[in-house]
């Protein structure tokens, strides 16, 4: 639906003739409004430049504020000034042409050499590209030296004139032999350079003549570009650009008066320079070498360059990122009973958002039916063939019904089953925007299934998400067949499932599939019923149902699957779980081979359904079984306390021994380290061993039915390491540089409570107390040091990784796979001959791995 296709864009410089052609008015009064609050003719808000106040009529095109695009004006500068942004280019041109005959400072051989060069980059451009970083070695040789040669030429090869040195001092000053060059002199020099010579320099003379860079006429943008705002007090506040233009016109007028009055040259030169300053600031108020022009309040003015630049500039803020209609945003919350590919949409939202319905000869009846409806799924707008949009209200409904014809577009309210895009920022990967089906629900939040939180990285502590309604049929089709949740289950990062069940879902599955789990008939019917399965598995002899058999009801009847990990077998044979427990290893995020198997053999829809049904089942069972974690889970008994004390004592003793050895000079250093470094590393290793040891102590002594322990084992929440921190000790705290904490107080110690030079564990940030009993004061301090360090590091990391991502995506965004499976950018440059060497899609790598493994068998 593109009205006009932009094929290419040519850049160039506006010539004085073009300025005259573009301009509708010559501005001469350096002011805006007269006493009556009416725009002054010939002033900066002249009504011929367009109008922004509603009600007024543009004097050029006769249109009102909304439809008048605005018109350019111009200022005639009494004396020409240099366009500061281009002064580097002026310098290059002036340097490479003769001071007297203005031919390029190259003899015919040099010209020929340049013309014959295959690639189109000119010497001037090369110089600019090279500015940033050192040139690559190979390129340097002939071409680079050519420009240098031009600069060092003393005598013009064409007329033989001696070339004086020209000095450039930013932003706009040029000197020849210590005499300042006036802009008009430079303009004459530029004008004398022939078109042919400019082409040699890489400049397209049709688009840009260098003398146009010295401004005699200044183009003034329409008022639409610099609208004034009326404050609440009735006071008018002008745009920064208008302010700057007023400055330019004032000085311009004064300069003219002084010249006419025959003022001394020095005064004229001063004013000329002042005019130059204002024009420079008008283009870029951050030009180095000039003080930024300021507003009355002291705020630096935002002039032309500032409008374009940076994250909030026109390019990145308005052009690369766009505001859209047909979107909604609200808080999200969970709903385990809606499918993974659904999104619960508040009624309020569904009433306001619309989907176009294209009226054709074939669906005219249906369209009429829809248009006739007055309640909820109704038509909000009618877009007729001439593009006019009419609001459908009770008063005009009858009339519109009569006029309805093929070609019209009806905008109907959102209903169940409509396809929408759902997004959570930051959108770090493609799974951050997925397509969902609408399910209109009461309430004011978006509802999503818990299993789709990982790709969005969402939780429900107040997160908000965005919803977009695709408007064209193409967009709807794309969303449906490429972006819908089930097609995004496997991440293109490594081919592993990213949409999985988590936390309680895993706990439930773990409890359900444990060997000893038995459910009575009522329980089994309840959990399966919630999952939407209305059959029961074969009961055992005593009329109970095995947990494993209940789980097996979810599986496809012909599924055969077996994996071994950490000595545990997990085996499904003919759709029945015969051995093993469902944990995060088989079912959750990460190494989820079961999900890969189902996805590969039964397809995305089946996998989505399995996830949905199994999460309902797991939730139902975990509610039934009941899991609770409180401080009692972390309470220790005498056995554990004894083991803990022993462990710490042994570790400290070991370390002490090493320290004594070191002091006696008996410690053998590690290869490549000094003795001191060796001691430090040995201590760290000992402390690490102690921490690992603590984990095995817990595993040994903590009751197997301890729910925190069970959850750690299932992989649903918490880990042994966290249990250790609660019941054993926190262990070594790290600093940013990765070593032990050693500084803080002024004599080689962390705190005054510690002996200077003490290298024993507890003096250097080893926290031997735990959260359950509480930290000792010194341990608390050490822990705070570690926490602060990691907090600082996190802040630095997010900023840096964000920038890394931006750079990577900018550099690689044009790459795509061509028909021959090679990777090319949009200019058809070859990047890879075959994608990844084997043309395998990263989304499918885990499938491929599994398929290969199965083939081996």
């Amino acid at each position, binding site marked *: 639906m593109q009205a006009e296709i932009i094929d290419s864009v040519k*850049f160039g410089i506006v010539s004085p003739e073009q300025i005259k052609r573009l301009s509708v008015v010559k501005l001469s009064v350096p002011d805006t409004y007269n006493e009556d609050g009416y725009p002054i003719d010939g002033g900066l808000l002249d009504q011929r430049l367009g109008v922004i106040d509603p009600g007024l009529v543009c004097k050029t095109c006769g249109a009102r504020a909304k439809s008048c695009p605005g018109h350019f004006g111009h200022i005639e500068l009494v004396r020409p000034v240099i366009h500061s942004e281009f002064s580097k280019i002026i310098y290059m041109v002036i340097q490479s042409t003769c001071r007297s005959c203005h031919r390029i400072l190259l003899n015919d051989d040099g010209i020929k050499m340049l013309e014959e060069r295959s690639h189109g980059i000119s010497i001037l451009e090369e110089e600019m590209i090279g500015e940033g970083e050192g040139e690559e070695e190979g390129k340097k040789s002939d071409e680079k030296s050519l420009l240098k040669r031009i600069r060092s030429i003393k005598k013009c090869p064409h007329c033989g004139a001696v070339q004086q040195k020209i000095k450039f001092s930013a932003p706009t000053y040029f000197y020849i032999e210590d005499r300042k060059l006036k802009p008009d002199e430079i303009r004459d020099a530029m004008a004398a350079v022939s078109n042919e010579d400019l082409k040699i320099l890489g400049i397209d003379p049709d688009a840009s003549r260098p003398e146009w860079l010295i401004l005699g006429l200044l183009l003034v943008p329409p008022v639409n570009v610099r609208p004034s705002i009326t404050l609440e007090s009735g006071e008018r506040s002008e745009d920064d650009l208008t302010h700057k233009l007023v400055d330019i016109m004032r000085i311009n007028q004064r300069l003219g008066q002084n010249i006419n009055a025959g003022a001394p040259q020095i005064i004229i030169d001063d004013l000329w320079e002042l005019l130059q300053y204002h024009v420079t600031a008008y283009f870029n108020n951050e030009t180095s070498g000039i003080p930024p022009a300021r507003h009355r309040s002291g705020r630096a003015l935002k002039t032309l360059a500032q409008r374009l630049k940076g994250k909030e500039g026109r390019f990145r803020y308005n052009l*690369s990122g766009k505001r859209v209609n047909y979107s909604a945003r609200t808080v999200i919350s969970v709903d385990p009973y809606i499918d993974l590919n659904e999104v619960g949409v508040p009624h309020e939202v569904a009433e306001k958002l619309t989907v176009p319905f294209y009226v054709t000869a074939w669906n005219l009846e249906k369209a009429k039916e829809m248009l006739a409806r007055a309640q909820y799924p109704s038509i909000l707008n009618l877009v007729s063939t001439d593009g006019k949009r009419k609001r459908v209200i009770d008063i005009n409904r009858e009339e519109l019904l009569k006029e309805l014809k093929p070609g019209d577009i009806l905008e109907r309210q959102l209903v169940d089953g409509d396809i929408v895009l759902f997004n959570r920022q930051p959108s770090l990967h493609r799974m951050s925007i997925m397509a969902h089906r609408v399910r209109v629900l009461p309430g004011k939040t978006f509802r999503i299934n818990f299993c789709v939180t990982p790709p969005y990285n969402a939780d429900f502590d107040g997160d908000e998400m965005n919803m977009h309604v695709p408007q064209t049929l193409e967009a709807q089709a794309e969303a449906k067949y490429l972006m819908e949740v089930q097609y995004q289950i496997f991440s293109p990062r490594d081919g592993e499932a990213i949409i999985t069940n988590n936390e309680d879902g895993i706990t439930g599955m773990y409890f359900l599939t444990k060997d000893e789990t038995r459910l009575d008939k009522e329980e089994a019917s309840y959990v399966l019923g919630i999952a939407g399965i209305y059959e029961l598995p074969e009961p055992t002899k005593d009329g109970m149902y095995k947990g494993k058999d209940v789980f097996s009801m979810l599986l496809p009847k012909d599924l055969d699957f077996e994996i071994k990990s950490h000595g545990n077998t997990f085996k499904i044979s003919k759709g029945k779980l015969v051995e093993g427990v469902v944990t995060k290893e088989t079912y959750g995020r990460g190494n989820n081979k079961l999900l890969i198997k189902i996805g590969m053999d039964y397809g995305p829809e089946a996998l989505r359904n399995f996830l949905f049904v199994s999460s309902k089942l797991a939730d139902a069972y975990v509610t039934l079984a009941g899991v609770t974690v409180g401080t009692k889970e972390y309470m220790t008994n005498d056995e554990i306390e004894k083991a803990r004390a022993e462990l710490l004592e042994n570790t400290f003793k070991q370390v002490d021994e090493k320290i004594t050895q070191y002091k006696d000079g008996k410690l053998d250093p590690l290869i490549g380290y000094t003795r001191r470094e060796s001691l430090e590393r040995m201590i760290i290793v000992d402390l690490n061993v102690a921490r690992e040891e603590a984990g095995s102590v817990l595993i040994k002594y903590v009751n197997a039915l301890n729910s925190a322990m069970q959850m750690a084992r299932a992989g649903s929440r918490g880990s042994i390491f966290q249990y250790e921190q609660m019941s054993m000790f926190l262990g*070594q705290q790290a600093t940013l540089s990765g070593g032990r904490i050693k500084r803080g107080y002024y004599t080689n110690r962390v705190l005054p409570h510690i002996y200077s030079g003490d290298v024993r564990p507890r003096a250097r940030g080893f926290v031997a107390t735990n959260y359950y009993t509480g930290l000792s004061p010194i341990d608390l301090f050490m822990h705070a040091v570690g926490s602060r360090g990691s907090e600082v590091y996190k802040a630095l990391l997010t900023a840096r990784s964000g920038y890394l991502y931006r750079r990577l*995506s900018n550099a690689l965004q044009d790459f795509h796979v061509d028909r021959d499976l090679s990777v090319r950018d949009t200019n058809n440059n070859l*990047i890879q001959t075959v994608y990844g060497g084997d043309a395998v899609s990263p989304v499918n790598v885990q499938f491929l791995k599994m398929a290969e493994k199965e083939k081996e068998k």
Partner: protein
Amino acid sequence: MAKDDNEKEYEIEYSEPVGILAAQSVGEPGTQMILRSFHFAGIESAIATSGLPRIVELVDAKKKPATPITYVYLSGSAGKNVEEADRIAKKINEVKMSTLVKRTVENFSKGTIKILLSKQELESEELTLGQVADRIQKVMKVEARAEDRYVLVKIHTKNLKEIRSTGVKLMKAVISGIEGAGKAVIQRDKKSGEFYIIAAGSNIEGILTVDGVDKSRIYTNDVFAMYRVFGIEAARNAIAKELSTTLDEQKISVDIRHLLLIADAMTAGGTIKGVGRHGLSGQKNSVFAKAAYEETVKHLINAAAFGEVDPMKGVTENILVGKQIPIGTGSVRLAIKKEDMSRAKPR
């Protein structure tokens, strides 16, 4: 989906935006990289930069890594013999004067510098005073003599500045080993039991001149050194390998294809280019794409001055003007024959 292993089934689809996939695959887990806690597997993990800083260093194509490391495998029997390996390591191990020196005394009236050397350091590097003096004489082209406890360097000038600067240069002089090879240490491969040397420098040109070094297996994490010695393909592999090991260390699984694409993009031009504004992004031929990325004004000014043309073929340019992007589903068009069109009249 069928169970057969038809290769097409796993094939990448036409016009898939693989560049963006690669960028997202590396960029997204960036925030997950953790502060390295304590696990010191071997010497390498302690010295080498790792995590996000290392990734940034690689994709930026920094000329010199912050922590260069070279892995030197040994040919012949040296791989199995500690003494032999040690001999080679000694030859490589770079010893700078500054590590040996305890104290220097400058005598400006006589134009001499008296250098007191640390006995302990000399012993551990197996050097004698005489050797040091000889070496200084050779490298610095000054007169140096070993006295009983120190080395006396004579500079035949009384120019204060010159004596000082000679003294500074002296400290940087390489007394033994290969310049730029860094500290070299023997390691033993845990699996094969083979001895190899790791050096904290990346002068592989120099190391390759040492006898007993297996030239086919030398490897360094300095991708530019790999490029200089083994060429661009080796550099490409080295970049991908370094990215991969860095991510593995962080336990972040990223498919190798993404890393290969990044490495290929960086090396496709025949030299190593970073991904930043001076590298790949700076060389796009779209003015708009460059302007929307970084240094907006500079790119627009240059485009205007030279009369450049933006061919509007890339992604950014087309987003800027509101057109469909030319990759993915945007790269295909639906066409219908005129005669078919006439048949599709409504009833």
